[in-house]
């Protein structure tokens, strides 16, 4: 499957798709999108890269094993959930919102961090499964 076209396309597709996945993640609160879909898109981007350039090269791009993204994501989601208890004395998972919107990202709230956690877990889990299976081939 290492065709020249796919190979040259993938080096542009990977950053574009990753950017797109972040875009989907961020717009999720107002428009269709969100952490889950965003994570899947990012995972697809890496899988595509692995198909065209080989798994080893993708691993170099990733730097760490995708498995590490899972606990990281879970931790972020969890922390965003308990922040209200720790700082504002509100029940678990209460949405907290910054007063002023930030350029590009928009209004910043704890829900975004929760979604970021979901995003990371989805990338980590799908890549772990796919990489493990293709390595055992």
């Amino acid at each position: 499957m290492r065709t020249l076209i796919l190979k040259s396309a993938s080096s542009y597709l990977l950053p574009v798709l990753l950017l797109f996945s972040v875009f989907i993640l961020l717009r999720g609160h107002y428009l269709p999108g969100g952490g889950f879909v965003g994570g899947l898109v990012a995972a697809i981007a890496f899988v595509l890269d692995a198909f065209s350039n080989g798994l080893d090269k993708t691993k170099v791009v990733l730097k760490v094993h995708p498995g590490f993204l899972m606990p990281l994501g879970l931790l972020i989601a969890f922390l965003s959930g308990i922040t209200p208890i720790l700082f504002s004395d509100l029940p678990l998972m209460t949405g907290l919102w910054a007063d002023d919107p930030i350029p590009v990202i928009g209004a910043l709230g704890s829900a975004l961090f929760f979604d970021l956690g979901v995003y990371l877990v989805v990338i980590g889990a799908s890549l772990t499964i796919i990489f493990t299976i293709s390595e055992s081939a």
Partner: protein
Amino acid sequence: MLAAVLLGFLFSLFLVFSGTYFRGKLAVLSSLIPLSLFVYFLSYLPEVSNGEVIYQSYEWIPSFGVNLSFTLDGLALLFALMITGVGSLVFLYTSAYLKDHKYLDRFYGYLSLFMAAMLGLVLSDNLMSMFIFWELTSISSFYLIGFNNDKADSRKSALVALGITGIGGLLLLGGAVLLGDVAGTYRISEMLSSREAIADSSSYLLILLLIFGAAFTKSAQFPFHFWLPGAMKAPTPVSTYLHSATMVKAGIYLLFRMTPVLNGGDIWHTILIIVGAVTMLYSAIHIIFRTDLKGILAYSTISALGILVFLIGIGTQAALVAAAVFIVVHALYKASLFLITGIIDHETGTRDITQLAGLRKVLMPVAIAGFIAALISGGVPPTLGFVGKDLIYEATLHYGGSAVLLTVLAILTKILLFYGGFLAGVKPFMGKLPEKYSKLHLPSPLMWVPPLLMTIAGIVFGIFPGLIETAIAKPIAMTQVIDYESFHLKLWHGFNTVLGLSAITITLGLVLYFALKPKHSLETAIAKLDVIAPKTLLLQLSTGFEKFSTLWTNFFQTGYLRHYLSTIVAFLIVLLGFLLFSDFSLNIDFNTLTELTIYELSILTMLLIGVLYTVFTKSRLAAVAALGVVGLSFSLLFLFYSAPDLAMTQFSVDTLTVILFVLVLYKLPKYLNLSDTKIRIKHGVLSISFGVLITLLILRVLGEPKNAEVSEYYAENAYKLAHGKNIVNVILVDFRGIDTMIEISVLIVAALGVFGLLKLRLKTRDKK
């Protein structure tokens, strides 16, 4: 009191880290633990004998009504003193008996674990905490029976004992839950006030049977008695402590404790009297056929437990007082006899009664202890055994119509127990000393002083029965008997029927002792009856169950994914089909349906082609690709019905699924042979009916009146509360965020599972 209970647990925990120091000479010091507890409980004696009940409670799980509440009344104090008193002597004895054993520290750990659990059991006022301590005693008994873990025999006996007492524990839990439900509290002392409600409730019989089951398994009543002779595989101190003096009396304790609460009708008396009588006589007869000293003692213990159940069944004040005194009597003589047997075994290396004789010449103090123990056991004056035996006859003689029958049964049992006691306590020391034993010498005083002390106590209490009366009998009668009347314990009652019966018992017991010699031939003769013994039957039941479960497992666990899927789908079809068709009405208003558009029609065609191609293609890869078409068509459908979120997710998931499938299938060989037509038809029927059923189900759901309250709430508040305009996402990350949290955790577990399974295989392959 919490500290008193916890002390044993703490000590065994302490031994885990510093056990090596306790294997040597320091081992003796560990007996300070039970001894200090004994003194502690003794200090409560004046208050308790005045009829006071000391109560302490510590909150544990208050929301379930489960607290660590401890009461110290006469009954609890009797058991607490017995546990710590016999415990101190056994701890002392062990330090010499298992001297320099490499696991001595472990042994002490188990023993003190047991002691703490047993104390917790008898002090608990809360049925739930009592259950927990109850189970802990079973578990520590398991460890102690299997202490010689390099012997297959010990391991098996330990498992049998754990199995039987474990089942009993579950029964107790069941009984406790039901009782708590009826009475509205788990506190036994509070249940007393609702005893009439309990007796009238519809689950009274069930509660009774559950509690009986627990007590009978723990206290080795017929037909569950057989674990106790097996438990004799444990080192002798364990047999002394757990399997004669304390743990096996936990069932008796439970019955005693429940007497004021449950003693409501004839069933209580009838069952207990019958089971007790069968047990006491059945195992007393068994004594005749035993030649192993510990075997004799095991069966006489079961018989004594039978007597106790029998007395509690009679349930009059006289019977309960007799039971309370007999508990003390039995603890004193049986523990001494066990310890004496341990000494004999330790010195001569055998417990075979036909080999042992004349040991008094070399083990004089032991012989004295054995002789007194036999006197107590036989109920010869002036020992406490005599007082106890008289009380038993007094109780049976005054039990209504069947007094004669019950008295005869009690006398028969007592004669056989007399025989058993003399066999174990006197026979090894009488006659001519065999040559091979002439070089024996007396072991360390740590071993022979404990039994001697206990037997002397038996005589002292016999001469001054007032001690037992004020300390134990009266406080117990005051709390456990509902219409309490004052009474007095006496050694000498004057010439009356009871005295005559006592004389008959002792005479016939002596006759039996001189006439009947234990022989191996008798033991082999009775072994032929083992085929119909409860032990064999129950063990066969358990192996049968094992075979059945193997068959059952092999039938369902074939290892083929298709079989699992077919089973699950078939089961769902049956279940759903039954539910749907037992109450089915399909009303679709065809007029409200919109026209089919050209887009929908083309997607439907695409779907259909995809499905048919998947089913009929001969290549795996093509099938996967076709499945991908089906999935993508679905995401288009979602898009048409204005669910862009779903469409996006479906699209990405489908892409990844196809990639995954390809990765897995890539490694499989090309289709070698497809399944034959018959199986294909079977699978086809299964899947089509499942699909039809799900369709019907969905149509049915659509026909139900909608409850839009929830969706309206989400729609209204998504922006107000969560600052989001995409309701789906707001639900995911905010309204139902904890669900999402758990879902991503599941995702992680799945990924870790795949990773672990495949990497494990990789590594084993690398090794080759």
